[in-house]
């Protein structure tokens, strides 16, 4: 049974990240995803200290607040003339550091383990059960991630054309009256949500891998946006399954193996993609030369 829950949890994480990752990659904001996943840390810790428990709702709001704060600060620094990569670096390391300090100061009294935050503990996901009126409802993480995935799917499908146009041509989007800034913050809010729902399972660092790698793999394999989202989810889930099997075989970190598997799939796509793969390009060149 534990296999099932771990793979389900991993697949939910991968799906949440895969959908949002597509828009991050297309908007060339992969590193903002990285930044948010780190800078929600102080939010998580503060929520933890306030409630003394891993109350998911409070954590969700705290993470959202810090995710949006990160986005806002990065934007503000850029507009005041700081290089965009530098402003991302400044904001997320500083906020992450605040989180580290808070954990080291207070977390001795409450159970919040730095390793768990950074690397996740997906192996124990089926031990943390949500009980409703004495009834075993299954792992808490599955419910939390399922809810997050539903929100992401609902928001993205409702505003698909807006997200698409904002990613492709923000100038036209603004010219026809789409509130580009609101959709920017909406996307970043969703990324914050996905990060905080995922961090318990795969940790704050590896979640970035699941945001960026499957989306980048899908980018190599298709020329349609809808298809790219579908493939991204597929690659994410495949990474989860392959990664989990590898982890069991090697007795290694599950989250680590999942992201490694994603990396391997990316490398395969890079080499063998029919349209953009290195091998296909070489073959085409050879044909031309012959």
């Amino acid at each position, binding site marked *: 049974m534990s296999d099932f829950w771990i793979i389900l949890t991993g697949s939910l994480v991968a799906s949440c990240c895969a959908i949002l990752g597509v828009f991050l990659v297309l908007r*060339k904001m992969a590193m903002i995803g990285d930044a948010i996943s780190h800078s929600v840390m102080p939010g998580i810790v503060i929520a933890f200290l306030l409630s003394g428990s891993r109350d998911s709702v409070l954590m969700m709001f705290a993470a959202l607040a810090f995710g949006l704060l990160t986005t806002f600060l990065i934007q503000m620094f850029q507009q005041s003339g700081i290089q965009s990569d530098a402003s991302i670096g400044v904001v997320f390391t500083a906020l992450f550091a605040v989180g580290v300090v808070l954990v080291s100061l207070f977390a001795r009294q409450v159970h919040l383990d730095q390793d768990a935050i950074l690397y996740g503990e997906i192996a124990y996901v089926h031990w943390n059960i949500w009980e409703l009126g004495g009834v075993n409802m299954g792992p808490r993480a599955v419910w939390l991630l399922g809810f997050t995935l539903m929100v992401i799917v609902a928001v993205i499908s409702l505003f698909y*054309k807006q997200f698409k146009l904002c990613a*492709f041509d923000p*100038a*036209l*989007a603004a010219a*026809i*009256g789409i509130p580009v800034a609101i959709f920017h913050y909406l996307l970043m809010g969703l990324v914050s949500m996905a990060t905080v729902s995922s961090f318990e399972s795969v940790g704050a660092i590896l979640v970035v891998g699941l945001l960026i790698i499957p989306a980048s793999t899908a980018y190599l394999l298709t*020329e349609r*946006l809808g298809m790219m989202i579908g493939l991204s989810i597929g690659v994410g889930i495949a990474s989860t399954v392959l990664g989990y099997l590898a982890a069991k075989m090697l007795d290694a970190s599950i989250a680590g193996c999942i992201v490694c598997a994603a990396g391997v799939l990316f490398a395969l796509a890079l080499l063998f993609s029919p349209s953009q793969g290195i091998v296909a390009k070489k073959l085409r060149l050879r044909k031309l030369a012959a």
Partner: protein
Amino acid sequence: MSLTKALSKPAGSTAAPSPLSVNGLTVAYQKKPVLRGVTFEINEGELIGVIGPNGAGKSTLMKAALGLIPSIGGEVLVYGKPYKEQRKLIGYVPQRESVDWDFPTNALDVVMMGRYGHLGWFRRPGAKEKAIALECLSKVGMADFADRQISQLSGGQQQRVFLARALAQDAKLYFMDEPFAGVDAATEKAIITLLQELKRQGKTVVVVHHDLATVQDYFDSVLLLNVELQAYGPTEQVFTQERLQQTYGGRLAFLDRSFQVPAADSGKGV
């Protein structure tokens, strides 16, 4: 955004409001003004060329008029009302380099984006939008490329897709930011035909243009810009060597009076 200090226009705007009237528009990037006190009013149904050296604020003028960048003073009215209330009357063709042509989408899909403004918040583009988009693609001679991934199109073809998208916007006033930049002869011809067609339909088109050699052939009116408005009026009156020298600050070397070879700023003319 709008400032009341703007000078009131001298009489002349009697009956129908102008498609675009700009009053004392000032835009600055980090304290350095890029546009200073620009005032003009265009006539309906004309093709208007916006001419000036690099850094003169041509694109900025367009973006500020569209509300894409904030202005620090002045007022822009589209058919007598603030831009925000008139979005559906306006079509926009950004510079081709402003988007990533590796985006996973095809030509038809890009043209359909021109309909998004008419669809409101929640409606998705459907069969009707697809038909409009196909029709617009054929108007620019690109119907055969509807399913083509946009990165596989040549620069000129990409430009034509952008024009088709603007057509799909079904506007009355068009802004085009350097549509002729770096395009092939076939595309240049397609754009000209399209501009003439739009004019025949009574539309007004404002075009940022680089190639001085073609200005007299293409545009009814010319707006000479170098941070401040240098001149605005019918092409034959405004497009003179004297005015151009003034606009380009003497950086323009003419070989002969007929503007055959623009030396400065264009490079791809001829």
